[in-house]
Structure formats: C-alpha cells, structure tokens
C-alpha cells in the first residue's frame, strides 16, 4: 500500500552569510513498504532521520530524491489542491501533544477541523461525528468545550489521535507518538492504537526509539542509522536474531529484568556518539563505532542483502 523507494531528504543548513550553506543529508536511499493494516516500525537514535522520514511520508517536507507511493499514486509528484485531496488517506500523530494542538482552539474545533476542511460534515452532523470520535479515543462530550491546556499529555494525545483518524486514513504515521508520555499512559495509548487498528484496519508507520514499545506493537521493523536503513525484517526475527552489529548493540542496551540473561546478552558496548549527518563517515556510516569493522567497511557503502530468515541487512561483515 505504502511504497517508499530510494528516498532521500536533504536540508540546507547554515546562515549562508559568512559561511557556505551545507547540505545535511537527513535521509538517504531508504526503501520499504507498508502493507494495508500492518504496523511497520522505524527505530533509531535521535539524529537517525526517522522523524524526517515521517514528515516526508505525509509530505510536510519535499524529498530530494526517490518516491513515496500510496496505492500506486506518487505523492512526491503532487502539490496544492491535488495533494490536499489525498491527504485524508495518510494522517499523522505528532510527538509532542503539547505543541501539536492549537492552544487557542476548543477540543471540539480541533477534532472537527479535518472534517470541516474536507467538507465531510457540518452542523449537527459534525457535532455528532466529533462526539463519536472523542468516545472512540476514550474521551467524552464534556471534553468538547475545553481547551488543550486543561488536559494531560495522555488526554491530549487522545485528542490528536481522534483528529488523525477523523478522515478514516489508510495509513497513520505515528511520530514518537507515545514517547512524550509516562509509562502507564504509554500503555493506554498503545492499547488504544491497537484497538483502533483492529476496528478500522489502518496501517501504522510507527516511528520510535523505544525498542520495548516497538517489539510490543510492530509487525515489521526497520532499524535506521544516520539516515539509512541498516536492517529490516519481521519483528520476531529482528529481536531474536539481529543481523546487523548496530541492531545487536541496540538490543543489548535494552535492560532485561534478569541478571543472568542480562550478562549473557552483553555485547561489546558501543563507543562514541552518532556521527554528524553533516559530515558522515565514508563507507558504512557505522564503521567508526562497530566492534566488527573491517577495512572494506571504511570504503564501500554496504547494500541490502536478503536474509533467509526474513528481511534484509546492509552489512559487509555480518558477524555470527
């Protein structure tokens, strides 16, 4: 249903007044598909380009290269009114529910806005639909005449979800949609998302840095590092048999509530920070931090190879 091919997104950074503007390659050569009704997670550290990817999929940023097809239609080729016409099919829930709701609007108007903009309902019908949506996400009629600042983070995210599903999208992009919430609220929102998916058959593009959450909710996972996907595959395979040294390091960093297994899990720890995407390393971007790095890693960018047990990995070494 969603097909992302060879996607690249660049930003120009710097003032350009005294220094030359530099090109920040936030996302490079990303390929993946999301099937209808499926949850596809993209994980990575901050700076790995995953939020930029989310914003490109809903066309808030224009990619430099590549394509995003939704049901065969290339979104990157659309603009203006034609783009607005397809927007109902793919909606987004943002990371910070404190910033994503207009503070000057009532909850009723926030949830009604997508319906009003696309002329789906008006008057009493609109009111009924807003109430139905609020009830779907666990809110009620008395919340309608409130302002966002009167709500907790979890409640605000419920409002954001109600608004995002108002147009019955085929794909919901969830950009770190639960990471700003505390753990118990996280679980409530995740359960809500699962319920909604069962009911409406939406596909989720789930952007997160939280492996525990991803393991719980995702069908398939892509691991990103410095703007590239380094490994992707079914969730079970990724978590049980990670193929890329970076994935292995990430998984080893997740604490396990059992000291013996925790010790057994331990990989050589990752050293250093994620490099600047302004000045990415040559070859495999991970080679500077990889405990298994070989000379070839410095020179050639690894290409994705299919794995027998599902998915693909981009690594020259592929340690056992």
């Amino acid at each position, binding site marked *: 249903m969603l097909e992302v091919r060879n996607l690249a997104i660049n930003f120009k950074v710097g003032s350009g007044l005294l220094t030359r503007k530099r090109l920040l390659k936030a996302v490079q050569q990303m390929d993946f598909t999301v099937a209808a009704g499926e949850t596809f997670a993209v994980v990575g550290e901050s700076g790995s380009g995953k939020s930029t990817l989310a914003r490109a999929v809903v066309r808030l940023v224009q990619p430099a290269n590549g394509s995003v097809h939704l049901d065969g239609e290339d979104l990157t080729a659309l603009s203006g009114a034609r783009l*607005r016409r397809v*927007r109902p099919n793919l909606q987004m829930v943002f990371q910070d529910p404190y910033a*994503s*709701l207009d503070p000057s609007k009532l909850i009723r108007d926030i949830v009604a*806005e997508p319906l009003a903009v696309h002329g789906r309902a008006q008057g009493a019908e609109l009111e009924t639909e807003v109430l139905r949506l609020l009830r779907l996400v666990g809110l009620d009629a008395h*919340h309608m005449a409130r302002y966002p600042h009167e709500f*907790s983070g979890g409640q605000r995210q419920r409002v954001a979800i109600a*608004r*995002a599903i108002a*147009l019955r999208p085929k794909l919901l992009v969830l950009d770190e949609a639960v990471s700003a919430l505390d753990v118990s609220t996280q679980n409530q929102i995740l359960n809500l998302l699962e319920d909604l998916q069962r009911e409406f058959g939406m596909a989720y593009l789930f952007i997160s840095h939280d492996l525990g959450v991803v393991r719980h909710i995702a069908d398939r996972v892509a691991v990103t590092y410095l703007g590239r996907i380094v490994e992707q595959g079914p969730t079970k395979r990724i978590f049980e048999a990670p193929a890329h040294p970076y994935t292995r390091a990430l998984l080893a960093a997740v604490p396990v509530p059992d000291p013996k297994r925790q010790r057994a899990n331990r990989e050589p720890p990752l050293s250093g920070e994620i490099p600047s995407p302004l000045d990415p390393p040559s070859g495999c971007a991970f080679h500077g931090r990889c405990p298994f790095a070989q000379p070839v890693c410095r020179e050639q960018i690894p290409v994705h190879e299919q794995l027998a047990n599902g998915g693909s990995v981009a690594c020259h070494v592929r340690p056992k």
Partner: protein
Amino acid sequence: MTDTSEMTGAVVQASPSALRRFLRRFARQRLALAGLAFVVLLTLAALAAPWIAPYDPLAINLEIVLQGPSASHWFGTDELGRDVFSRMLFAARVSLLAALQAVVIALLIGVPPGLIAGLAGGYIDNFTMRATDALMAFPPLILAVAIIAVLGPSLTNAMIAVGILLSPTFLRLMRATTMSVASETYVEAARSIGCTESWIITRHVLPNVVSPLFVQISVFAGVAMLAEAGLSFLGLGTQPPDSSWGAMVGRAIRYIDHAPSLIVFPGLAIAFTVLALYTIGDGLRDALGREVRTES
C-alpha cells in the same frame, strides 16, 4: 478564586471560556484595573465635554486672566481668561483621538507587511526588514518634523508622522510572533490534515499572534499621546483655536512665572493618562501570557 494554571488534567473542572479566563486574570491586577478605570472615565468625560464643561472653552474674559485655581474656576484661567478645566475637557478629546489615530495608522502600516514578512521569509522578509531598519535609523523627531514639513502642520498630519514612526515596532513584533507561530507543530499538523494556507493563516496564525499586539497597542497609545504633546508643544500638531494637552503646556510655558498652575494641570493629565495606558499594557501582558503547562 480558582486558578486554571494550577489545574491538572486529572482534575479538570468546568471550563471557563477564553474570554472569561482572560478577564479573571486581568481583574486580579489592581494597578491595571485602576489604569483602565482612569482611561474609561477620561474617555467618557471627553465625549461628554460639551455637556459637562462648566464654561465655553473658547469664551474669552479678559477681566480674569491667569488666575489660579478657585471655586468658580477649578483649574484657574489662562492668558485670555478662558476656563482651564473646560479647555482641558475639550483638549482631552483631541489628545485621545490623536493617540487613537496614530496607533491605527501604525497598525495599518505595520501589521500587514509584518505578517507577510513573517510568513513568506526569504527575500520578501529580507527586503521588508532592511526597509524597516532604514526607517528606524532616522532620528524620530527629525523624521516627524520632516513629514510634517511635507504635509503641512495639522494634528492629523502630525499623527500620520507619529503613526509612521511607530509602525516599525508593530511590523517587527508581527514578524517575530508570526514566524514563531508559523513554525509551531500545530501549524504543521493543520497542513498535514489538508488545510489550505489561507485557512491556516486565518484560523491558526492570526488568533495566536494578536495577544502581544494588544499589549503593544496600549503601550503605544501612551507613546503616541506623548508624541502628540511634544509636537503640539512645538506648534507642529494641534492648531489654534483647537487645543490638546500638549498645546496647552506649550502655551502655558510663556506664563510660567505668573501662573505656574497653568502648566501643571495639562502636564499632570498627560502624565497620568500615559501612565494609565502603560499599566493597562502591563496588565494585558500578564493576563494574556500563556498558561503554565501542566504535565500529566
């Protein structure tokens, strides 16, 4: 008195409207309320001047020139024996109207380009801001005198000059707030659901940029009143037989030895009104400030 800013999401109470919340927060500020009461009373008095003034402000009586305050002439009489209290009531109309004119002109000149510059960015923003810099680089009084020299001395022309001088601040304020609001996530969110740009500007950007504007308006009403007083004092504003407080101070200065009270009353009127407008501005700023975010 309950405070919404301390309210957490878990214990949400009946919701007051935005206006009522603002009014409640404004009403908590005594000084701003006093300022508002003063300006409202003054405005009413100015509007009712023809009915409440004890004397004709233009009636000359050379037998009672330059008298100090008395029971029959509360604020004394001027060099032509006219009643100062009556003249001040009529002058208040001129002074208030002048301040209003200047602020409206400044808003008309400053707000639309500020909004456009903030939204458009790039070359348009650059051009607008450099033009503003050039305007601000002129010494204000000289620029005002130059504008009046071109347009001729009259109160309206003086206020056009003051309006032009005040407009860069409105422009910059609008540009800065528009820029920050336009980069808010809720604007991006509106775009992602498929709102048109004009919908986003009218429904999301404008409602969120007007608060700082209101604060600036009340402060600038005070500034404009001072500027009018200054220009009228120099003879570049209000022309006789009309009079504003500034013009009254200007004329009174010649008789400061014989009748010091002549300068005191219009001077105090200017000072108190400007002060009142500033305190309203302060109160608005505090009442319109964002609610403290509460975490869940």
